[in-house]
């Protein structure tokens, strides 16, 4: 029961964050979802038996199921690696991505998208980006307040 509640809460939080703008929030949402799935995996092995699953040390009827624990260990490593990569993606290239700019489409290339920009006016455009960035940040703050 408590495991179900924890999974429900984590999924709710994760989905809420996934639906927010900004890659950073999405990454945090995935972290929460990953935790939810890990709790689900552990509870799939049964929550009653909690003993360390060691032959000769623990009775079979109190030993926990080791298989889901191995699943969780594998899943944690994979999720961790991908999370770090996503954070790198959020940092690389368009600085607006972390703050809530939706992924750019090529056919609707906006000035802040940066895909067809010459080297000469890169500095100019970067300052533009920064201003646009600040604008977005206030937007997001207002959105959060309302």
């Amino acid at each position, binding site marked *: 029961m408590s495991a179900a509640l924890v999974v429900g809460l984590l999924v709710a939080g994760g989905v809420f964050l*996934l639906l927010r703008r900004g*890659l950073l929030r*999405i990454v945090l949402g*995935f972290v929460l*979802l*990953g935790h*939810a*799935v890990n709790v*689900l*995996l552990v*509870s*799939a*092995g049964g929550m009653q038996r909690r003993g360390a699953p060691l032959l000769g040390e623990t009775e079979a009827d109190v030993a926990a199921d080791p*298989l*889901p624990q191995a*699943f969780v260990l*594998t*899943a944690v490593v*994979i*999720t961790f*690696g*991908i999370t770090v*990569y*996503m954070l790198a*993606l*959020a940092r*690389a*290239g*368009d600085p607006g*991505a972390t703050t809530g700019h939706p*992924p*750019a*489409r*090529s056919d609707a*290339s906006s000035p802040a*998208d*940066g*895909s*067809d920009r010459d080297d000469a006016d890169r500095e100019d455009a970067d300052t533009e980006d920064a201003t646009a960035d600040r604008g977005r940040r206030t937007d997001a703050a207002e959105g959060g307040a309302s």
Partner: protein
Amino acid sequence: MTGGLLVLPVAGPLLLSGLLALVHQLRSDTTRLDRVVGPVAAGGVLVFAGFLLAATADGSVPVLQLGGWQPGIAIVFAADTFSAVMLAVTSLLVLVSLPFAAALGEDEDPAFVPLVLVLLAGVSGAVLTADLFNLFVFIEVMLVPSYLLFTAGGGAERLAAARLYVSISLMASTVLLAGVGLVYGAAGTVNLGELAGAGESSPAVGFAAAVVLLALSVKSAVVPLHGWLPQTYARTGPAVAALFSGLLTKVGVYAVIRLYSVVYGGTPRYLWVIMAVALLTMVVGVLGAVGEHAMRPVLTFHMVSQIGYVFVGLALFTAAGLSATVFFLVQYVLVKTALLMCAAVVEHRYGTGELDRLGGLARREPLLAGTFAVAALTLAGIPPLSGFVAKLGLASAAASAGQHLAVALVVGVSLLTLLSMVKLWNGVFWEPPAEDGEGEGAEGPAVDDGGAPAVASALGSRVRPLVLAPPVFLAAAAVVLGLWAEPLLTISTAAGAGLADPSGWVAAVTGR
């Protein structure tokens, strides 16, 4: 063939990838070594798959219980004809794609070949494993290098597409893992052999496995979960897109077919869902392609449409339907890669794939145009090419199962496919180039980002024949498989029979 060797297609590429990465630390320039080791590894897996095809032809299933544990406890590798033919076609694609990427200069990143080898190991593992959690792990082993390959070359647009690609993949993987957890909770095992038929007999397992199928449907880009595919594949490196098209979504398709065949025992109860999704995917994919005006977006929408075709045979779940599905899958993977390679060559040489800025390439590049034409007609299903044999098989299987709507759509969507292939042909190869005003005479580089017609400004040399060797080879395979379909039909019939009645596979996996 003994089952113990089944670990080779996974371990071999992984080991070589690690060794290459080590050598990269010691020596500065390893491009030449990379260009030898990569194809050698892929060729090795291809040869292995050939032996596996011969060994499984009589219906026997080589099995490896990893670590020598008892059946039921060990992680199991098993190969039937379906696994073997998937292994063969994916390794063939890697073998062809590596020299192609090298010819286009997309393998400049020193990590390129090691990453492709890890990708190959993941795909091999995914088609050989008989364990649900292991399937999840191998899909991740396949996806992680794909994230890195996706962004190779960089650029703001590609990074933006990569964010979408990684997010969607991670979402699907999370759902997949949750599904595996639910299956374990409901059935107490993730061994596919032990799970045989459980999806049909137990509602809890059936629901849990449906969560897994949902996640795999995202990976195979089935409508309504297809939106990410045209958004992302059209924006990665052209040669990388050609490589991905044959490997990533196809593993999702393979897993859906395998799971439905084994875990649900092909129960007719849910077949209508698969049929509805398959028909919707065919129609929506092809209609999406009509609205696009550049080579790769059109081709990636057709990928979605063709995946619908593959699922039509699964939705029939007759031996004829399943063998038509296997035949379709194999020939379509080859042809689609050939088409995407043609698009990659055009984009690489002329700097764009947009139809408005291309034209008249048939005269400049007759070999490229011919290759594209053969592959496009194969995709549309014109006799005597292999696409015709595949669609004929699907249509006749659907007709004998009484699914008349499916027959009508298989034929109708082919017409729309032909229409949009003709559009590509006209726009890129046939019509005279769009008004060559300002671009004329400008001896600029081939890659110009202005609005000028790309062909007019791309003076100088044509595409080197060597670059065209991989797509020409794949298009030739389409012709050969159409005119001399017998060997592949034999293989696909054996694979279809094994899927329609998976008891031999299940018995081998469980050791009972």
